[in-house]
């Protein structure tokens, strides 16, 4: 009898609409100034706007209630669940942030640290905490030193001052959910392709050099984009503060080539042998070498094929005759 009653109550509570349940919460939390105030309009326009409070606040079941625990987004955003994006949560678990959080580091960012709690909008929505233009400021709340470097860099100046949102921000290199450990070799190598998404030509020409080829084979202890250009503090070589400026380039090369000289730095780290206007000597060397190879191979392959053909023919004739 008691079990039947309990079942009835459960079914009833499931039938109660989300709105009804929320109204109950809003009776306190809808009041401005109240602890845990939620702006009903903003919440209902958010991506979670149709979800009842208790679906996330599992620890709250009535009134009065204890201080709410931190919501675990993983109760919906887990791999295999339909109707909620899940891949980001899986990536987060592998990221440097996620690993630190799982290891119990309370300073490590959790979902809400970046996305906020009640007012979660799509990242393309300007109200979103993680809309593109807000990202550098968001990361700066923990990574203030990196933000300072970034703000002075060519990417940062374009992004923050000129509002050129195409310019690289934190996530373009560090990947928002996957955020690898900065020292990780695989991450360093992946970064080359990340740079290449905007700087495609530079990536292609780099990959034709010894540096680029070794990196492409999977070895990170060779000059990669950031080793020469810098990372957060990237500046165009024309800027005297750039790692590649006339003033700094020798020191930059010396990070690996200890005895590099000013002459040494005239190496074309992005050479294109096909560009006659820019690299004439290289172009004509390449042209000469190509002609030499084609000439030698053409003559000797012809020689070899004719020889093989004649020799086989004579053998067959000899056999046939004998």
């Amino acid at each position, binding site marked *: 009898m008691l079990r039947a009653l309990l079942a009835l109550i459960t079914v009833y509570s499931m039938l109660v609409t989300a709105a009804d349940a929320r109204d109950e919460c809003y009776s306190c939390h809808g009041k401005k100034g109240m602890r845990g105030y939620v702006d009903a309009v903003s919440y209902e326009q958010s991506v979670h706007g149709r979800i009842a409070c208790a679906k996330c606040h599992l620890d709250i079941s009535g009134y009065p209630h204890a201080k709410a625990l931190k919501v675990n987004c993983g109760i919906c955003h887990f791999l295999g669940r339909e109707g909620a994006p899940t891949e980001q949560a899986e990536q987060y678990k592998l990221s440097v942030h996620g690993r630190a959080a799982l290891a119990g580091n309370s300073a490590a960012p959790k979902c809400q640290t970046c996305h906020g709690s009640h007012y979660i909008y799509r990242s393309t929505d300007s109200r979103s905490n993680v809309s593109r233009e807000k990202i550098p400021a968001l990361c700066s709340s923990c990574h203030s030193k990196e933000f300072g470097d970034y703000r002075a860099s060519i990417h940062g100046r374009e992004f923050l001052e000129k509002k050129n949102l195409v310019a690289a921000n934190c996530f373009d290199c560090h990947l928002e959910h996957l955020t690898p450990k900065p020292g990780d070799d695989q991450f360093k190598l992946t970064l080359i392709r990340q740079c290449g998404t905007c700087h495609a030509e530079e990536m292609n020409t780099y990959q034709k050099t010894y540096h680029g080829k070794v990196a492409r084979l999977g070895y990170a202890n060779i000059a990669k984009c950031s080793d020469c250009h810098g990372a957060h503090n990237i500046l165009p070589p024309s800027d005297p503060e750039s790692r590649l400026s006339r003033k700094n380039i020798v020191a930059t090369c010396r990070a690996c080539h200890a005895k*590099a000289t000013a002459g040494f730095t005239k*190496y074309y780290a992005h050479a294109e042998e096909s560009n006659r206007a820019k690299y004439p000597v290289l172009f004509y060397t390449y042209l000469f070498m190509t002609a030499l190879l084609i000439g030698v191979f053409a003559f000797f392959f012809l*020689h070899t094929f004719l020889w093989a053909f004649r020799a086989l023919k004579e053998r067959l004739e000899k056999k046939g005759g004998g």
Partner: protein
Amino acid sequence: MTELKRFNAYHRILHVAMAVSFIGLVASGMPIKYAQAPWAVWLMKFLGGYQSAALIHRVCAVITFGYFAAHIGYVVYDIAVVRKFKFNPLGPESMVPWFKDLEDIYANFLWFFGKGPRPQLDQWTYWEKFDYWAVFWGVGMIGVSGLFLWFPEFFGRFLPGWAFNIATVIHSDEALLAAGFIFTIHFFNTHLRPEKFPMDPVIFTGRLSLRELEQERPLEYQRLVAENRLEHYKTGPQPNWITDTGILFGFAVVLIGFALLILIVLGQFFY
């Protein structure tokens, strides 16, 4: 069966050093040249990573400079001490290409087209001379550009850095020329052509038969007979173990060469 000496132990040892170091250079260099090919990643791993491959490359480069210098030393010794400067650099015993070689090329092409007899060849054929001088050209070009790339900081004191870009193009393309040539044309001309197939062991045993000399190098044979020097070159066969080891080594090198050739062709044309 009477055999005649063609190569002495010094020549044969240098050729083995050359073959071993050449294979080492190609195997450790091509994964860099064709870094975009998937095979390059596993070959590099197989060699123990790029720094280990670079070490192999440099050891083999030192062997190359070594046999090259050893050969130059031999030539000087042979001409100055053994022959006491009684040596005609344009004669039949010289490696210097001369008009006879042009005539032989012409005659050989006529024979290819069935329009004439095979040329009467002497001690060194024109394709052997080409192989020989190709090593000078190759070691010179690849060796000098390789030294630039090995010691960029030193050469950067005298040369602008873009000299290393030039050196890279020369090093890489010359290497393709050398490997492509050795693994196809040299292998065919010396080992795979129908008269020699599958292998001419002369460079490993140092000996060829009287019949081979008579048929393939008639001018040399006639000269030796006329000058009464044939007896001087006559010798018994090598002990079996030398012949067998030589042939085994030769086969191994040819097979490795073909394997590398396949990788080069894949890298050059398919990735």
